[in-house]
């Protein structure tokens, strides 16, 4: 508590144990009924974290099964359910809500200098919608599971003898959870910025969450109506997607990807935001091309609405549509490339602290480069006709979803962990875990590029023997990756009990979130902050007082 931040009045330490949002009240209802954005963020962190572990367990089962060409553990039917559960849990319960729900909720109001999000009750509702969605997903498993793949493609999803309606309703609720979170962030960003915090003084994490929120609000309703229609179709055979009743399955694909392509950016934009923050803080350097990164977030958000057809290049859509969608798809590559280059340029000639958040960030930058570049390969029409629905696509989107988004989430978690809980985890273990995850991840997914381009289709419970070496390597990688994640969870949880006290400004950040006490008090700021400096201006940082670890 020694920081003398120039733009804030110093908070005088009144007692040894200052009241903060964690210890200001206790009991079940003080959490379950809380309107405090930080507590809701913690609840999201626990919820999405559990969903991630469940999804990861399913992934391990899938990988173990595929060790042998005829499958090692399950029947085809069980395998289909497990890979579906893996996809649905990871996408709907973890990747989409995790960063906005936990880190976004926690940090966005702090970065804006607000006391809370603009609509706290809606925020709590949003969390409970997530819980209800998760309960319905669990119920669907009890009621017989679902084996449609996370994409729910009609007409298979209409005919299969499984609990599709239950999980459909779950996804409907999860969709509205996501919408309400996004809505809240838009309003908060517009209306609750601290005096002096102009749009171009906002940290890039806020920009990224804002662009994400636009997508959540504008795209998710179409997913809602799509799963509702699937449920109606199963319950009373309306025939909108059922070819036997005159419906067109391709219309389902259009509806689904109208949401689910922007959803890819709902997932990845917050990750970009985290990386922008971390690259700057841990290089102690203003971001290279701040405005370009901010605008590229918005550009990605808007272009992402125009490219959904690239998931349907083989679906039989018209050649004209393929022309338009492929052309627009390549345009997404540009703002994304600008971001990657800008991050690298920020690190260039920085003052780089190689602590664990930065290690995760570097891992992200390497993995995302591969994930992004392989996306360019898939954007080319004729090449995609060969690679579509193969393991090449599986590897590509895991490089983006798991390798980039989850790693950015881990990076952000390690970065803001001291801010959230006031304790530090074991840095050595953190570095070991990061390297393990990085190695395990690449061992898992690099072979999948190989077998994908050689023609191994995805969602196969069994496969022709020639792909076995790649599958086996991939399974070994998954085990390494799993142990890395297990290590990470262990030391993070352990730090809550035995972690040493974190510093008020652990990493030497200059955004408002680092200028409140650690952990923050209930209404975040003892005195209303006023922003007078440009964003990421490290000249205001009192280096002597932060004692930032150098890694």
């Amino acid at each position: 508590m020694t920081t003398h931040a120039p733009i804030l009045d110093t908070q005088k330490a009144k007692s040894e144990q200052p009241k903060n949002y964690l210890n200001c009240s206790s009991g079940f209802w003080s959490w379950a009924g809380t309107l405090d954005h930080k507590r809701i963020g913690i609840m999201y962190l626990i919820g999405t974290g559990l969903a991630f572990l469940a999804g990861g367990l399913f992934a391990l089962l899938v990988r173990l099964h595929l060790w042998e060409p005829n499958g090692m553990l399950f029947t085809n039917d069980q395998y289909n359910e497990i890979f579906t559960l893996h996809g649905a849990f990871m996408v709907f319960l973890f990747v989409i809500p995790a960063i906005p729900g936990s880190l976004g909720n926690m940090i966005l109001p702090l970065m804006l200098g607000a006391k809370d999000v603009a609509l706290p009750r809606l925020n709590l509702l949003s969390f409970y919608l997530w819980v209800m969605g998760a309960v319905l997903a669990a119920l669907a498993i009890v009621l017989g599971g679902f084996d449609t793949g996370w994409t729910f493609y009609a007409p298979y999803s209409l005919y299969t003898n499984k609990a599709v309606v239950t999980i459909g309703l779950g996804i409907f609720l999860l969709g509205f959870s996501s919408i309400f979170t996004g809505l809240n962030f838009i309003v908060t960003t517009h209306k609750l910025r601290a005096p002096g915090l102009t749009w171009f003084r906002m940290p890039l994490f806020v920009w990224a969450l804002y662009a994400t929120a636009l997508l959540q609000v504008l795209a998710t309703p179409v997913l809602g109506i799509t799963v509702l229609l699937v449920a109606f179709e199963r319950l009373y055979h309306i025939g909108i997607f059922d070819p036997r009743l005159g419906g067109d399955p391709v219309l389902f694909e259009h509806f689904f990807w109208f949401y689910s392509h922007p959803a890819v950016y709902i997932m990845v934009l917050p990750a970009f935001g985290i990386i922008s923050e971390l690259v700057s803080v841990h290089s102690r350097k203003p971001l290279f091309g701040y405005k370009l990164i901010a605008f590229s977030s918005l550009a990605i958000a808007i272009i992402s609405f125009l490219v959904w057809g690239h998931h349907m290049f083989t679906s039989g859509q018209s050649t004209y549509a393929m022309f338009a969608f492929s052309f627009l798809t390549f345009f997404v590559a540009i703002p994304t490339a600008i971001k990657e280059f800008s991050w690298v340029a920020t690190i260039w000639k920085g003052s780089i602290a190689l602590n664990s958040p930065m290690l995760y960030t570097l891992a992200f930058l390497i993995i995302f480069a591969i994930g992004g570049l392989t996306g360019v390969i898939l954007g080319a029409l004729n090449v995609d006709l060969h690679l579509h629905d193969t393991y090449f696509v599986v590897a590509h989107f895991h490089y983006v979803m798991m390798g980039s988004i989850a790693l950015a989430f881990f990076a952000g978690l390690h970065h803001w962990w001291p801010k959230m809980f006031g304790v530090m985890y074991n840095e050595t273990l953190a570095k070991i875990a990061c390297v393990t995850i990085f190695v395990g991840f690449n061992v898992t997914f690099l072979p999948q590029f190989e077998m994908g381009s050689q023609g191994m289709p995805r969602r196969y419970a069994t496969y022709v023997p020639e792909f076995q070496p790649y599958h086996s390597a991939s399974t070994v990688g998954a085990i390494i990756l799993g142990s890395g994640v297990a290590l990470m969870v262990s030391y993070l949880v352990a730090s809550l009990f035995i972690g040493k006290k974190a510093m008020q400004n652990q990493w030497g950040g200059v955004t408002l979130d680092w200028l409140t006490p650690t952990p923050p008090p209930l209404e975040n700021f003892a005195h209303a902050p006023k922003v007078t400096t440009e964003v990421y201006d490290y000249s205001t940082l009192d280096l002597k007082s932060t004692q930032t670890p150098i890694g």
Partner: protein
Amino acid sequence: MLAQLIQDPAKAAAALSRAPKPELDAYGQLPKLASTFDHVDGLFYFTYAVCIFFFVLILGVLLFSVVKYRRKTFDQPPASNTTHNTPLEVVWTVIPLIIVMVMFAWGFKGCLDMTTVPQAASQNTYKATAMQWNWTFTYPNHPVKSSGAVWLEVDKPAQFLLESEDVLHAFYIPSMRVKRDVVPGRYQTVWFTPTQCGEFHLFCAEYCGEQHSQMYAKVHVVTAEEFAKAPWNTFDDSTPALAAKSGENIYKALCSACHTVNGQSVLAPSWGGDKGLFTKKDGNVVGRARQVVENGQAKTVVADEAYIRESIRMPLAKLAADFAAKANMNAFGPDKLSDRELNAVIEYMKSLAQ
């Protein structure tokens, strides 16, 4: 196998290295090209090279920075505070833009080639019918169909008219670089010219349910002479034994995804075993009595030829009692199974009698 890896890694590795090797092209990333669509390979490797260039560039700068500019004291300032460099930013916007536009044009040109069916191919049109979970092929100028395998003439453009009986499937031959979803309710087309004789995989690439990964067909590309002999035409019912053999082939192609012959009724009633369709009585093969549900009424029928014919042509008329709740068999009308073929299948069923 996994346990083996832990106990004896060397042996496990040796077992792995004995796995059959796919035939790859010169750069080892794609299966050896067996059609005329070389633009796919060209663009793939061009994009691949561009990706590797940018990846090495990014990785190099990152590693260099981390080594060179690592913070050594806690108050070390950055070596530079530059936040803008307009020429640099223009360069890294414009150059990728040019590159991706080249990729787009190249890819679209190739795609047009793959979607525009030439005259020669449309005069050599096959029909591929996908159903859960097998492929059936109808030939341009031959009345006999084949299942689970298709024969093509080398260097002759061929078009496939794709049709699905139930859900989405996808017609994917990696070596030919072609893939198209098979959408129920509409026809899709795909064409290519095989340029290599040999055997190739045909996978279903769109998830279609339980046996998705077993929905496989073998593509045989043969010379014109061999093709003229119609090697897929193995149907022969001149003697009961040959008919049973032909029936077995039909069983393997159309029925074995659901029906077993070993007495294990998992997905559907088994044809063989001690509860099979036919049994031997006094040296004669006769149908067994079966519990069925007709119009919701349980009754007992004898599994004679008439019953079997009805169960194939109209599977939902009488449902086997054990499977009444989940019966989902497709009807096999005369368009899919001729009367002679059906009789051959019955002949095969009889041969299973114990």
